[in-house]
């Protein structure tokens, strides 16, 4: 019977092409608006490293001015000072730990055909690679010894290895930056990051780094980072006093493998700050935070309020489209009262009539879903054109494709329920009178 009802449905849809088109387009538009915005919101906020996001914690210490909080809501500064970062690295109380910042350095390629260019460098410790797990194509990270020895070594991204060495295994080769030679120890494979969650201070969707360099090596360059720098007290003059200052400009991540370790580390931080208080620093009340990846992303509003409002609007629009479809289906089914009467008189049960009309609604939903999928694709293209930085989050994956179709069919069935119920209640006798 299912195929027969499907045929009946299709024929009935063909009979009123304009009304049918109106319903299909209505559902498709509603689906496209809601799915385009939902996809962006879903991908933006999705867990970037689900297998360990609850183990990675972002360290925040309240080293801010005694006179005012760092943020209006009383939360501690979003970065740490050089003093605290190096002290925590030295203590090494976490399972893994990495302080980091970013730097721009001029690269002087050996190959005369490649023009010198500016390169964005992530300055960090070897644990960075163990914590955030970027895939390696050649070689691997530098080791702990090289961290302490201020080794002039680099890990290259796939792109920059392509640019400098034509994608060859460049481990052991040297890269000259601002007159200093560094040797390559590893090359990353393509690292697909939806958001740059390990450093959200300059926007979650800013460009990833092209190289990675040991922290100790980079600090020797006496060059300021290219990220945010905030000071509540003047750093004074010169590089050394900047390092000693209360300016915050580093991100600090720790990996803590169990809740017990997290609690231990929290009390270690509190002890550290209490010790520092004796030296006259940290004059604010104890206010240390260890948010995990997802908490930190929520705190930093990775999913912007604009995207949330757009998603809300997308679903409100879908609601209007559904109300519209209910009205049109009602009109259509009411017109077919005669046909229903005839079928009922010939012995079809209410149940059968109900099935028939629900299948007709389903066909509309499926068509709307397919068209909606196409429009969602276009919508995402438009989002990528409007927000160039969202290219990593404005793409469809299989879950979203499936969600789109299911949402469309479910919406149409939902919209068809009341009209179908009304159609079933037709009294055969009333319809068959002339």
């Amino acid at each position, binding site marked *: 019977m299912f195929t027969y009802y499907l045929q009946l449905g299709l024929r009935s849809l063909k009979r009123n092409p304009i*009304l049918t088109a*109106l319903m299909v387009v*209505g559902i498709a*538009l*509603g689906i496209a*608006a809601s799915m385009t915005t939902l996809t962006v919101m879903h991908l933006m906020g999705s867990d970037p490293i689900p297998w360990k996001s609850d183990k990675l914690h972002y360290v925040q210490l309240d080293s801010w001015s005694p*006179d*005012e909080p760092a943020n209006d809501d009383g939360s501690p500064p979003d970065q740490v000072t050089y003093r605290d970062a190096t002290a925590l690295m030295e203590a090494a109380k976490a399972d893994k730990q990495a302080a980091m910042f970013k730097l*721009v350095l*001029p690269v*002087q390629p050996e190959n005369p055909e490649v*023009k*010198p*260019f*500016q390169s964005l460098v992530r300055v960090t410790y070897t644990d960075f690679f163990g914590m955030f797990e970027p895939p390696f194509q050649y070689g691997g990270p530098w080791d702990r010894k090289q961290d302490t020895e201020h080794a002039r070594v680099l890990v290259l991204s796939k792109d920059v290895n392509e640019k400098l060495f034509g994608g060859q295994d460049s481990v052991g080769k040297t890269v000259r*930056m*601002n*007159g200093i030679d560094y040797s390559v120890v590893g090359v990353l494979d393509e690292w697909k990051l939806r958001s740059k969650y390990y450093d959200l201070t300059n926007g979650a969707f800013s460009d990833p780094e092209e190289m990675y360099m040991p922290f100790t090596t980079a600090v020797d360059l*006496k*060059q*300021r980072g290219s990220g945010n720098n905030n000071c509540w*007290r*003047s750093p004074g*003059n*010169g*590089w050394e006093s*900047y390092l000693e200052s209360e300016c915050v400009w580093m991100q600090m991540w720790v990996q803590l493998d169990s809740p017990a370790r997290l609690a231990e580390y929290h009390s270690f931080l509190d002890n550290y700050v209490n010790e520092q208080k004796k030296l006259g620093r940290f004059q604010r009340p104890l206010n240390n935070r260890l948010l995990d990846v997802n908490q930190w992303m929520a705190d930093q509003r990775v999913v*912007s*309020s*604009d995207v*949330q*409002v*757009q998603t809300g*609007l*997308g679903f*409100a*629009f879908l*609601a*209007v*489209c559904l*109300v*519209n479809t*209910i*009205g*049109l289906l*009602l*009109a*259509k089914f*009411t*017109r077919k009262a005669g046909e229903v009467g005839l079928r009922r008189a010939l012995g079809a049960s209410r149940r059968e009539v109900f099935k028939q009309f629900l299948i007709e609604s389903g066909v509309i939903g499926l068509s709307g879903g397919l068209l909606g999928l196409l429009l969602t694709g276009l919508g995402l293209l438009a*989002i990528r054109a*409007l*927000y*160039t930085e969202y290219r990593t989050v404005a793409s469809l994956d299989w879950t979203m494709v499936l969600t789109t179709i299911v949402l469309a069919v479910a919406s149409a069935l939902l919209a068809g329920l*009341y009209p179908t119920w009304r159609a079933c209640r037709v009294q055969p006798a009333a319809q068959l009178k*002339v």
Partner: protein
Amino acid sequence: MEIRPIFSALMRSKVSMILIGLQVALTLAIVCNALFIISERLDRMDRPSGMNEADTFWFGSTGFGQGFDVNGVQQSDLQLLRRLPGVAAATSVLSVPMSGGGWSTGISLQPNQRTSTASTAMYATDAQGLDTYGVKLVAGRNFKQEEVVARSINDRGVPSVIIVTRALADALFPGGDAIGKQVYLENDGPTSTIIGIVERAQTPWMGSDFIENATFSPSYMPYGTSTRFLVRAEPGRRDEVMKTIEQKMQEANPSRIIGRLRSIEQVRREAYSGDRAMAIILGVVIAALLAITALGIVGMASFWVAQRTKQIGTRRALGATKFDILRYFQTENFIITTLGLVAGGVLAYALSLWLMHAYQSPRLPWYYVPVGFLCLWMLGQLAVLGPALRASRVPPAVATRSV
């Protein structure tokens, strides 16, 4: 015209009436709030930076190799830039309005104040700075070249003289007598004397709560081996100058990288790309929403006309004119739309309250809803016009046919 028969007819198809009304209500609520968000974004995008945006562009130069003399190269670059044909003025800068990156600090009236009196963006530039930015000096005087000090980002020092924006001058000295006054850029540091006031210069950050507070400091301030230059071309010659400049700079000194040249118009576009995108997306949703609602009304009205063909024929046979029939359907739509709009008005304010609560957005101005009423009334009347005209053409003879 009697409303009563229309009303009692409507009461017989309550569900359809509620559906159209609901659609109109949701449409009104969404359209009002979305339009308000769009207008807010357009207002934001319309804010003047205080600069000459049409003729200016900026770029960075980063030297490399040991022994790169950043200060020396900066000076020769400035001379080179100022001699180039088509260049009206050039200066070295730390940042420009709307660029998103820069330096800000607190500014105080007393030494060691617990909290500063105002926040300000800091623009480091030389005696040609105001002229190159194109900001308008409204009081006091410009910097003299001998007041410009060579510093660096690690050694920023405190300028002895500064020029501030009107907004900052008013925040510091509400009496309007800022010229000649001394302020503190560092808690216990030496004082800086305000020697001039410019009409307006925005900070580099579009979302900052001190967007009109800026301070110009007479200093050359390279960032490591990088210097940024701001160039103002003669009117109409910006693109021409931009094309040749990289090569000229490379020729003068090859051991450096010239960064991307960006016109200030481009800087503005990038600064407001999010607002622009939001306005466009909301605009598209509004258009689609109005279209769906209008089509829904057309579809429903067509159905009613078809359903009532016989009654219409009867009415015509009993003496109703074509105009009476037309008016019947127009009035019917007016009633449904009005009921929907009343509900929608309440919904619009509720939505606005929720947005205020969840996103700290401002309150929806009262006039959006009445204007929305007018627009949707019009939309409804236009949408129903086609089916209503079709109804008015139903011949009276239909009444006499049996099926």
